[in-house]
Each structure stands twice: as structure tokens, then as C-alpha cells.
């Protein structure tokens, strides 16, 4: 140890002792994966994955593929923003995909038009009083459904001390049941024009990135974020410090539920229909994004930025395999391996930190 770090009071912001942010490692992994695909692309298909190798665009990038990559991860990415916060508290949320499914059916039922091609809406769920409603109604219903599911999760976890895995597994089955029961398996279709604009075009991406920025700020600069990390890091210490841990957990799960509800609104708007199977296994994709992005399943560590990069890694891999014309099964094998690798790395880091102190 140098003298410098041992002065009275240790009043140093000694730069050499600054920690290396984990997000840079995740970002490095993203770059590495891109490089691998570029090389494989050059060898096997004679094209570039992300760059404009055929001069079809004004920029140097293949804008079309970039857009596809980010649109396909945006909706699950919104869920992943909430799941990230839950995992940082050392919890897990397995219900988000099913909550999306149930919310899709319910919210869409409040977004329907009365007339389709001159005749009455053949898919109408409710009577005329509930058709042609202003767009805020289905949006509020969607967010509300998500928040309610999240609060139930949070109360189960925080007050009845049911392990998060079981509590949210129960919600996962329950919400999927609700989705199927809602219209007896029939799709809910024909939304109002205003509703169909919510998820049109690049809107999912814009919403995803705006929320990512918002939650990045919240997690880093507000008391909510600080307590979320503190609870995941050492729940007993958080309790001892006077943090109302149960109440905070309910808030975290409620936010995660709200984001699942919002994804349902965006997805149904984009697809112009709601189906009871919507969001199937999205919870796993969202968890994968967070874990690949460096969010620790032990709690306390990880960030929104990490999860966004994790989402991009999944997007690049998915597009990359299609681009290389390889089957989806290879893609899933690789993704599975990366997830296990990321958790193994985290475990290893955790053990190393434990033995050092």
C-alpha cells in the first residue's frame, strides 16, 4: 500500500484506486460478439452484420438491421428494466410474461372501436358503452393491471415471506389463466386509431430508451435506487438502518408489474390484437438480459445500463444467427451458454471478494 492512500483521514479520490465499472466489461462482451459475427459474416455469407456492405444506405451502418435488432428487444427490454430492479433486491420476477398476457387481453378490451368496415366490431368484448373510449382509458387499465399484479407479488414476498421464486411463479400461472379465461381463448382485436399509434414504428424503441434513461437516473440518484441496492446487498443492514424494507419491496415489485403492463399496451398496439399466449417466456428473456448485463442474482449489484447492453447482446445474437442463416436452435444453445457463463462469472467474483476480506 502506498503512503498516498494512508494519509490522515485518507482524504483521497486516488484515481488509481477507482473501481473498474462492470458495465465496461459487458460492453466489451457486446463488441466482441459483434466482431465475431462480422468475421463469420465476411467468411460465410460475404456480408457485414451491422455495417452497410452493399451501400444501400446513406450511413456506414446497415440501418435496417440495426432497427430490427433494437425493435425486437425493446418490448422485452421494458420488462427487463423492472426485472433488473427486482433482481437487485435479491428477488426474481417470473410473472412478467404472463402479466403481459393478461394485461394485453384486459387493456385491449378497453381499446376497441365500435365499427369495423361499416359493421359492428365482431370481436367486441364489452357493450357499446365501452367502445371508442379515449386512449388514456386502456393505457391506464394496462398500467393498473400491471401495478396490481406487482403489488400482489410484492406483498407476498415482503409480508408473507414467501420466496420470490414461488410467489411470482404462482402469479405467472394465475395471470396466464386470467389471460385465457378473459375471452375464452379468443383474440381481442380492432383497437382505436389512437391506441394503434402507441406501439407503431419506432415507438417501442423510443419508449424503451426513454424509460432506460429515467430508471438509470432513478437507480443512481434517488433514495429509491439507494435503498433498492442496500436491500439486495444486505437486507439485515438495511432493516437495522431503519429502511422500511417490506414497503420498499412492494414498491419495487409494483414498478416491475407496471412495466410489464406497459409492454402489454405497446405490444397489443403494435400487433393490433391481443392473444392469450402473448408474452410467453418473456420473463425468461428479460431475466437473461439482466443477467447477461451483469445484474447479480445474489442482489445488490448490476445496473440499468448493464441490462440495456445485455438486451443489445441478445438482439445482436438473435439477428446474427439469422444473418448467418443458422437455425434458431444454435442461437438458443449459445444464449443458454452465455447466461450460465455470466452467472458463473458473477459467482466467481463474489467468492473472490468474500475470501479477500
Amino acid at each position, binding site marked *: 500500500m502506498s503512503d498516498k492512500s494512508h494519509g490522515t483521514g*485518507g482524504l483521497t479520490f486516488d484515481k488509481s*484506486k477507482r473501481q473498474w465499472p462492470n458495465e465496461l466489461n459487458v460492453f466489451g462482451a457486446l463488441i466482441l460478439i459483434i466482431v465475431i459475427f462480422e468475421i463469420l459474416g465476411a467468411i460465410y455469407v460475404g456480408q457485414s452484420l451491422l455495417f452497410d456492405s452493399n451501400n444501400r444506405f446513406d450511413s456506414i451502418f446497415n440501418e435496417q438491421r440495426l432497427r430490427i435488432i433494437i425493435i425486437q428487444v425493446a418490448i422485452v427490454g421494458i420488462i427487463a428494466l423492472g426485472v433488473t430492479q427486482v433482481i437487485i433486491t435479491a428477488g426474481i420476477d417470473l410473472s412478467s410474461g404472463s402479466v403481459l398476457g393478461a394485461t394485453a387481453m384486459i387493456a385491449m378490451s378497453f381499446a376497441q372501436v365500435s365499427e369495423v368496415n361499416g359493421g359492428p366490431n365482431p370481436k367486441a368484448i364489452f357493450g357499446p358503452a365501452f367502445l371508442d373510449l379515449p386512449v388514456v382509458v386502456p393505457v391506464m387499465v394496462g398500467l393498473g393491471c400491471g401495478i396490481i399484479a406487482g403489488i400482489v407479488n410484492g406483498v407476498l414476498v415482503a409480508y408473507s415471506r414467501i420466496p420470490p421464486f414461488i410467489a411470482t411463479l404462482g402469479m405467472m400461472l394465475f395471470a396466464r389463466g386470467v389471460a385465457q379465461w378473459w375471452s375464452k381463448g379468443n383474440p381481442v382485436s380492432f383497437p382505436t386509431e389512437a391506441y394503434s399509434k402507441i406501439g407503431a414504428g419506432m415507438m417501442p424503441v423510443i419508449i424503451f430508451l426513454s424509460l432506460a434513461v429515467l430508471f438509470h437516473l432513478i437507480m443512481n440518484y*434517488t*433514495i429509491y435506487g439507494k435503498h433498492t441496492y442496500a436491500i439486495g*446487498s444486505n437486507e439485515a443492514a438495511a432493516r437495522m438502518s431503519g429502511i422500511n424494507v417490506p414497503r420498499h419491496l412492494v414498491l419495487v415489485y409494483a414498478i416491475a408489474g407496471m412495466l410489464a403492463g406497459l409492454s402489454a399496451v405497446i405490444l397489443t398496439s403494435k400487433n393490433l390484437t391481443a392473444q392469450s399466449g402473448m408474452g410467453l417466456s418473456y420473463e425468461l428473456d428479460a431475466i437473461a438480459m439482466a443477467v447477461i448485463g451483469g445484474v447479480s442474482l445474489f442482489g445488490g449489484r448490476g445496473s440499468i445500463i448493464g441490462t440495456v447492453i445485455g438486451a443489445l447482446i441478445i438482439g445482436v445474437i438473435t439477428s446474427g444467427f439469422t444473418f448467418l442463416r443458422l437455425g434458431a436452435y444454435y442461437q438458443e444453445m449459445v444464449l443458454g451458454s452465455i447466461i450460465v457463463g455470466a452467472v458463473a462469472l458473477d459467482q466467481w467474483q463474489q467468492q473472490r471478494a468474500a475470501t479477500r476480506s
Partner: protein
Amino acid sequence: MSETILETKGLTKHYGGVHALEDADFILEKGEHVAIMGDNGAGKSTFVRQITGVEQRTRGTIVFDGTEVNFSGPLDAREAGIETVFQTLALADDLNVPDNLFLGREKTMFNWLGPFRILDYKTMREATLAGLEKTAVKIPNIRNTIANMSGGQRQCVAIARTATFASKLTIMDEPTAALGVQETAQVENIVRTLKEQGESLILVSHNMRQVFDLVDRIVVFRRGRIVANLNKDDTDGQDVVAYITGAKTGAEYEGAA
């Protein structure tokens, strides 16, 4: 001097059938440093937990700084001015030094934002540096998470809370039990600094040399009861050991144990 900061009368804690603490009468004057000694399981930590509101006592009264208190939780005690360094460190590994010092009582701005009110990092950082300076605690970089710090550095972080919050009473439960020689010396230096600053202190310790180095008075616990109250200058290590093991019991406590 001779103004009482803490007084307990008949302080008792039963865990079901376990009588962990029985009728403890204890007095601490302002600015005084007192050691609590005793075998493992003697009830020292239990005593600390009753004073600091971590647990609710079975019976007895606690008078702190002139008023009878009933802390409903550790935060209550802390707000009243009792800072505690617990035997098991109450620190969050993934947070940095200021975050840990201010955990649960963060300085914030825009408080109308409720749970999303903004952290005033600058103020907290400055207060942390001032606190570390007062206690001469050495930390390489306060912006790093404490996960990679040594046991001694963490213990110092926990102790620095005291200096940062200008408390009226500091309680340390075996602060050096898990530390190496050098780290122990560092913690002991902090304790001396606190003495110079007139801070009242209760130090739970097994380390005889440390106790005789640092405190004015030694209180011995045995099987949940106080069995001796000794001025440092009127006693020695052998004497204290005799009380700890039960070979001797203080005159005023005869018949108690």
C-alpha cells in the same frame, strides 16, 4: 463531569426460557469510557441490543440523556444520539463509504418527490470526509464499494458513523474481534480520538490489554448478570479474570448470581 448519559435499572431480557439478561443496573457518565467484559454468552450483546432498540426488553427502565426512553427500533436510538458498531457488521457491501454511513438517513433534496427524492451526494461526501478526518480513518477511495475493503477498513467505516453524526453515546460490540494487529491498533486509535473529543463510550471487548489501555471503568457480566463494577486504577487483569470466571463476585452484587 458527573452528568449521567445512560442509566439502566433492572434491565432484563428473556428469550423464552433463556434468561439472557437479568436485572442489569448500569450507569455511564458523560465523556466516560466503560468496558463491558464477560465470557461468551454472558449477555453482553443482549445488553447492547436492549439499549439500542434492536430488541424490546422484557422489563426494566432505560434513561438516556436525562429522559426515560422506549426505542421502538435502532433508528429511534440513533436519532436520539446512540451510535452502535454491532458485532455483526451492519454494512451493505455493494455500497460505497458515504452510502453506508448515511444508510437510512440520507441527505436529500426535492423531498416532495417522496421515495424518488434526490440524493444530496455532495453534502454526504463532505460529511463523510469530515468524519473520517476526525477519526483519522484511512480509506483508499471513499467512492469505492466496501466489498473489497479489509475487515479493519470496514470496521473503521462503521465507527466513522459516530464521528459523522455527532452522537452522544457510542457503543462498540467487540469491534476488533475479527481484526489483525495493525487493524486493531487503528481502531484503538479511533477510540482514543473519541475520548479526547469527550465522547461517551461503551466498549464490549475480550481483550484485556485493550480494555486497560482504553477505558476508565470495567463492568463484568456473568450469566446474564452484572457481577462487578471496577475502576481501572483499582484493579488488574487477574482480578478481572476472577470476576469473569466466577471465582469472585463484587461485594455489592453478592447473592445476585
